């Protein structure tokens, strides 16, 4: 049976891991490769690196990071952040990335999804969507939730799927950083509407939140950062509780 995936997310700036609490306060949490290696040993099923480096050297920095990860880690990983053109994606693929995640570049130029899927296959293209509620609507936001767009979240996700997204990473900005649980209502709505895997993100604070999101929404994977980085939730413990709740998870080799 296909296992539900647990995905730690590492925010990386200038080659170092950082975690934003609501994307604003940054705290250094170590060397990304070492952290990644530790997570893979603990039983993480996949890793996501979000590069928030904002210099002209960024592509080079990202390629170096991806190569170091690919040399040492034996599980799949995704890299996101500032991927704006085919050449960025090509460089990351050749450095060993399994998938890339695009967010604002896709919102600004939706045809970029088609181009990436055509060039590299849908399995390589994760479309990350940051959503925030405005009134009774869920609206796609950019820049870590600061800038609202005109797109309604479900409409945009369906468009991304039809253009060639292979997976959706949905982050609820209302929940992100709160540790009050995932946005199960929206996640269920989205997961029922699409035919591609959905990764839930934003709001993980306790083991029960992971049980809830899998039971209530049937999403394929959950992504979290700080609860893992600061050891508040250990992946082996989390998987044991999921298993006790009859949620299929991967057992790792001794």
């Amino acid at each position, binding site marked *: *049976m*296909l*296992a539900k*995936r647990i995905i730690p997310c590492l925010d990386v700036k200038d080659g170092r891991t950082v975690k934003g609490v609501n994307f604003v306060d940054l705290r250094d949490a170590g060397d990304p490769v070492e952290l990644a290696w530790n997570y*893979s040993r603990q039983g993480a*099923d*996949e890793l996501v690196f979000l590069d928030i480096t904002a210099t002209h050297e960024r592509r080079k920095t990202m390629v170096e990071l991806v*190569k170091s990860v*690919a*040399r*040492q880690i*034996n*599980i*799949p990983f995704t890299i996101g952040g500032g991927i704006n053109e085919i050449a960025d994606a090509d460089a990351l*693929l*050749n*450095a*060993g990335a*399994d998938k890339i995640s695009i967010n604002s570049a896709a919102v600004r130029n939706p045809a970029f999804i088609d181009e990436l899927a055509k060039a*590299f*296959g*849908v*399995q390589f293209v994760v479309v990350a969507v940051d959503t925030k509620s405005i009134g009774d609507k869920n609206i796609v936001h950019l820049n870590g939730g600061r800038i609202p767009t005109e797109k309604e979240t479900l409409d945009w996700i369906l468009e991304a799927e039809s253009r060639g997204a*292979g*997976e959706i990473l949905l982050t609820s900005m209302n929940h992100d950083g709160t540790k009050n649980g995932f946005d199960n209502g929206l996640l269920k709505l989205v997961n*029922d509407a*699409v*035919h*591609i*895997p959905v990764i839930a993100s934003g709001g993980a604070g306790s083991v029960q939140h992971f049980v809830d999101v899998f039971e209530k929404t049937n999403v*394929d*994977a959950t992504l979290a950062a700080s609860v893992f980085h600061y050891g508040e939730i250990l992946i082996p413990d989390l998987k044991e509780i999921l298993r006790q709740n009859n949620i299929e998870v*991967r*057992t*790792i*080799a001794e």
Partner: protein
Amino acid sequence: MVANNQNILGHSETPPSRGGGVGIISYGAGNIFSLTAALERLGIAYGMIYNEEDFEQYDRYIIPGVGHAGAAMHKLEQTGLIPKIKSLTKPVLGICVGMQLLTSYSEEGDSKLLNLFPIRTLRFKDSPDYKVPHTGWNTIFPEKESPLFENIPSGSHFYFVHSYFIEYDTAYTLSSTNYNSQFSASIWRDNFYGVQFHPEKSGKYGETLLTNFSKI
């Protein structure tokens, strides 16, 4: 393919001596950085194969492959290596699309393939409960005894990402996985092996499988 070339230079200049060495068939279908990185971590010597003479240097071969099976087949045809590949008697391992190429046909691009296995590669049917691509860790169940799965318990998880699968066949399926229906997670005929999952991304068990292949 800068990253690949760096590896190629590092290894093809010092071909492994007898008793070791995996030749990776180079035909431009997808990235192999993660595969070569895994072989390096495991201490398995490897090099790249570009032409017929290169085959002699190695004891076994890997056919990698990512992306579109029809496009991959077209690229493989352009290398002119197909008659040689079909005549190989040393162990050959196809990975993902590299495995699909060993079958007779793929629905992807309505493509005729190598036909080393007289079975077909089909697309997963759209279904609300089974998303496509089949993405993530799924359990594999060996159907036969094989050195490829030595020290890998039945029911172990491997990492899959694919929209097309090889049909289940009692003669050729070496291990099976269930996703919507039962399909071939791996196949075996004589010296030819194929795995649909990515051993280089499948944690410890994936590494065990690569090590097993290096000893067949």
